[in-house]
């Protein structure tokens, strides 16, 4: 009944999460604006004190310039729920106007626990649902991936909810529970609009599955059912706003998709940000041209992997397409945050369930990529005072990754008592050796840059030298990974057949 392996995995994951949450959150001790933590708290204040039609509107009581809501309605509802609890725990946490910038150990503990609860209720069950009854590498990696832990429990966000819903939707769709998958994905999308990064593969995979149905009637009915569930979910989530009137509804849309923001904020490991070092885009093109350039590049580059899924809708292609599309979006789209790399990291981890565990992907590309995702966020994490937990959680992750076989095999039969495999192990080919070598060199470079960033003050002429270098270093690697992951998606390779996994 109680799966000890999962209980152990989740309790270890909780130890890591809670440990990170002891450290500072974004904007701690930095009035007047503070950071994401204060934004979340402010949303609790707004949603429980003001009527729904004022949540996204600029009113006397709701100053949109001070952390106005800019996520879709599910975030607002979640803030409302948490706010209600906060109010009962200590009403000063959510006092309208008075509670701005409130900082106390009790409040911090409450907020940190709310993230832990969200993980317990959504992310952990999602992992269990995706991975089935026996513990797999996928489950382990999802539970201890430092990027998600540091952002959710350090910087402070609730990515566990949207990513958890995303994982559920992928699991459902792979198992041919397309309605559940569609609903879950729509919910994820309605929690954070960035989930649009994953929308194309879902669309093409489901469409591909519809087209592969035996009869025309089947095709249409499947399409219809999926369509209804998508529309139904959206209506259910947005209904209160529809009822409040078209202006309110449009206002929400305007807040979610602010088209007047710049190409990027801060330094991001994005293609445009890197190009900008040499070729100043903002000076040579105006906003709408830049916008068009981004959309065109993103859509064009997403086409290959998505058309592949449309033509061959298998779980393997679907998951690889999720990885590739989200990476394309991250590199080429508009107004990307460094935190959005998490949307790419999670599909990358999910890919371990559809690729062979002895493949170059799991042995080399994936750990390399995942560590670089954390590295790309180092400037943000250092700004939050999270350097030590970053190093600790990443080193821990590496050690666990290196011993993945031992960790995961403990749940299988006593046959694994043998210390070494009786089969002869092939020596690595030249390319694999080169890959391994490059990985080590690259990671040493990353460590060096982190050290320099922390220890050596930049010259006065280039005050943002280290963040820029870190971003450029990361984005060049990401471009390399984009190529590699596309090659892996398009190569036939050894596929792990994803039959109905035991729940």
């Amino acid at each position, binding site marked *: 009944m109680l799966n000890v392996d999962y209980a*152990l995995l989740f309790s270890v994951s909780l130890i890591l999460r809670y440990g990170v949450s002891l450290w500072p959150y974004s904007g701690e001790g930095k009035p007047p604006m503070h950071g994401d933590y204060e934004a979340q708290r402010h949303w609790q204040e707004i949603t429980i004190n003001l009527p729904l039609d004022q949540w996204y509107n600029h009113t006397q009581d709701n100053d949109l310039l001070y952390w106005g809501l800019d996520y879709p309605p599910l975030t607002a509802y979640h803030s409302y729920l948490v706010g209600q609890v906060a109010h009962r725990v200590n009403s000063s946490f959510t006092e309208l106007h008075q509670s701005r910038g409130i900082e106390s150990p009790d409040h911090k503990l409450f907020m940190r626990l709310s993230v832990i609860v969200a993980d317990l209720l959504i992310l952990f069950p999602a992992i269990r649902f995706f991975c089935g009854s026996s513990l797999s590498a996928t489950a382990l990696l999802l539970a201890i991936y430092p990027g998600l832990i540091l952002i959710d429990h350090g910087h402070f966000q609730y990515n566990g909810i949207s990513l958890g819903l995303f994982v559920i939707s992928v699991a459902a769709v792979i198992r041919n529970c397309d309605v559940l998958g569609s609903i879950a994905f729509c919910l994820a999308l309605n929690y954070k609009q960035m989930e649009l990064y994953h929308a194309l593969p879902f669309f093409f995979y489901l469409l591909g599955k519809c087209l592969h149905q035996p009869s025309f009637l089947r095709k249409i009915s499947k399409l219809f059912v999926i369509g209804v569930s998508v529309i139904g979910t959206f209506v259910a989530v947005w209904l209160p706003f529809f009822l409040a009137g078209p202006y309110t509804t449009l206002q929400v849309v305007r807040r979610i998709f602010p088209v007047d923001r710049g190409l990027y904020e801060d330094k991001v490991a994005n293609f445009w940000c890197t190009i900008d070092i040499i070729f100043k885009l903002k000076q040579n093109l105006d906003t709408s041209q830049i916008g068009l350039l981004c959309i065109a590049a993103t859509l064009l580059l997403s086409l290959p992997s998505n058309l592949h899924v449309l033509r061959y809708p298998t779980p393997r292609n679907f998951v690889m397409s999720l990885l590739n599309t989200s990476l394309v979006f991250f590199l080429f789209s508009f107004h990307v945050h460094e935190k959005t790399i998490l949307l790419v990291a999670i599909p990358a981890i999910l890919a371990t369930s559809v690729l062979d565990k002895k493949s170059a992907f799991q042995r080399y590309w994936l750990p390399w990529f995942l560590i670089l995702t954390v590295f790309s966020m180092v400037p943000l994490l250092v700004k939050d005072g999270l350097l030590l937990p970053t190093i600790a959680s990443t*080193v*821990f992750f590496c050690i666990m990754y290196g011993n993945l076989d031992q960790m995961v095999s403990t749940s299988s039969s006593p046959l694994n008592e043998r210390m070494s495999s009786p089969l002869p192990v092939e020596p690595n080919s030249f390319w694999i050796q080169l890959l391994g070598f490059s990985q080590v060199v690259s990671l040493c470079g990353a460590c060096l840059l982190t050290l320099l960033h922390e220890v050596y003050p930049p010259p006065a002429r280039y005050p943002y030298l280290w963040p820029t270098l870190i971003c450029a270093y990361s984005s060049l690697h990401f471009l390399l990974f984009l190529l590699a992951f596309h090659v892996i998606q398009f190569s036939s390779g050894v596929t792990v057949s994803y039959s109905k996994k035991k729940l």
Partner: protein
Amino acid sequence: MLIAGFLALACVKLLYLPSYKSTDFEVHRNWLAITSSLGVQSWYHEATSQWTLDYPPFFAWFEFALSKVAVHFDPEMLVIKNLGYSSDKTILFQRLSVIVTDFVFAVGAWTCMKNMHNLKSVQARGPSRDAAIYTLLLTNAGLFMVDHIHFQYNGFLFGFLLLSIGAMMQEQYLLGSLWFCVLLNLKHIYMYIAPAYFIFLLRAYCFNNSAFSITRLVKLGSLVILTFVVSFGPFVNQIPQVISRLFPFKRGLCHAYWAPNFWAVYNLVDKALTIIGKKFGGDMIKIPTATDLNGTQASMTGGLVQDIEHIVLPSVPPLATFIITFLFMVPCLIKLWRRPNSVNFMRSLTLCGWSSFLFGWHVHEKAVLIMILPMTLLAVISRKEAKYFLLLAITGHFSLFPLLFPHQELYTKMFLHIAWAFLAVKMLKKVHKCDLLTLAEKIYLLASVIIFIYSEFIHFYLPPHLAKYEFLPLLAYSLYSALGVISTYVRFYKFFLSQ
């Protein structure tokens, strides 16, 4: 695996750097200051801070060595007058020092794991046994809570104990004795298990093949004496002062947070009888006034330490506790004499520590580790011992909860405890290939959840006339744990004597 495991744990410990730290943090900072600022002659006389040096000389030298590194972090922490100084760099240094010195523990655990292969009497073999020993020792939740949050150097100290046991497993008796003597001169609380060493060394080493060997006795004796001479040598002029620092007897029968031992139960029974007596046999017993009761009640539970007068049951002077403790040690020592092998040595060692935990004077609840850690080695030997280990360790770690009392640490201790409990159950089940706990035992362990919920949550929402009894949560923890600790002691003792 040695390095990887140690490093992985170090990362987790590093995450908990910002946790609550107890007054022990200041104690050690003070000792860093004393040993670095003053000459050797003043170490045991210095009394600016109330936390005077009360560990043996080797530990003082250890702090001296640490202070040489500390000066590069924050020289201000080495100023004696800076009482309570705890800058970020100080915290970083002190916490790191515990994490780094835990390497001794890792090496000790590794040594024991390797040397277990030599023991003929041990049945279970294979990598799952190795993994269980090393992992369960290194990840011990109680050690994590006491060392890396509350703040102490037990990992470092127990490392020497493990090295000693490891040497004994290889029949390297002199090396084993050396490690143990070093340990005794680092922290004298390990005197509690010295009888096991004494008997074992006498029987297995000095009585070589049933013939008493004077040369061996002399070798052993000189080794021990030499170690003590090296340790106390520099303090030869102040031996009385050092001794008075090492053995302060003004402290009470029970520590501030009641260790789950026999005396805690004894105190409680005394209290209960007093209250009952007051109700029924009013003029037979001297009735303590309300202030008396409140006074003693407050002092026993309010965290102050002093001598406690018992009212109904006889008072217990320190000498009585020594005699009782020793009496309880005798049976296992006799058994060890009859069958002197490494496994029995480990068993008697554990039981000696256990006896002194249950019947000793002013026992800290942290001392529960002195039974749990050696018993980890025994847990892979037989199913019964695995069962007793699980009961002892899970209950023992639970009894440490009151030490980490701030709200923030509530979740820390909960997650650590639960994770380790699952890990232990899983790894030992894999070693012994069967379910180790009976239903009754599982129910007992699960009942801890009720105690936990009451003590950490419900108690504070009780109506005021009940909530003012602040000691009730502590009492709950203590009694519940005492039940497990005492009953498992009896069962394990019976098991050992029947071997």
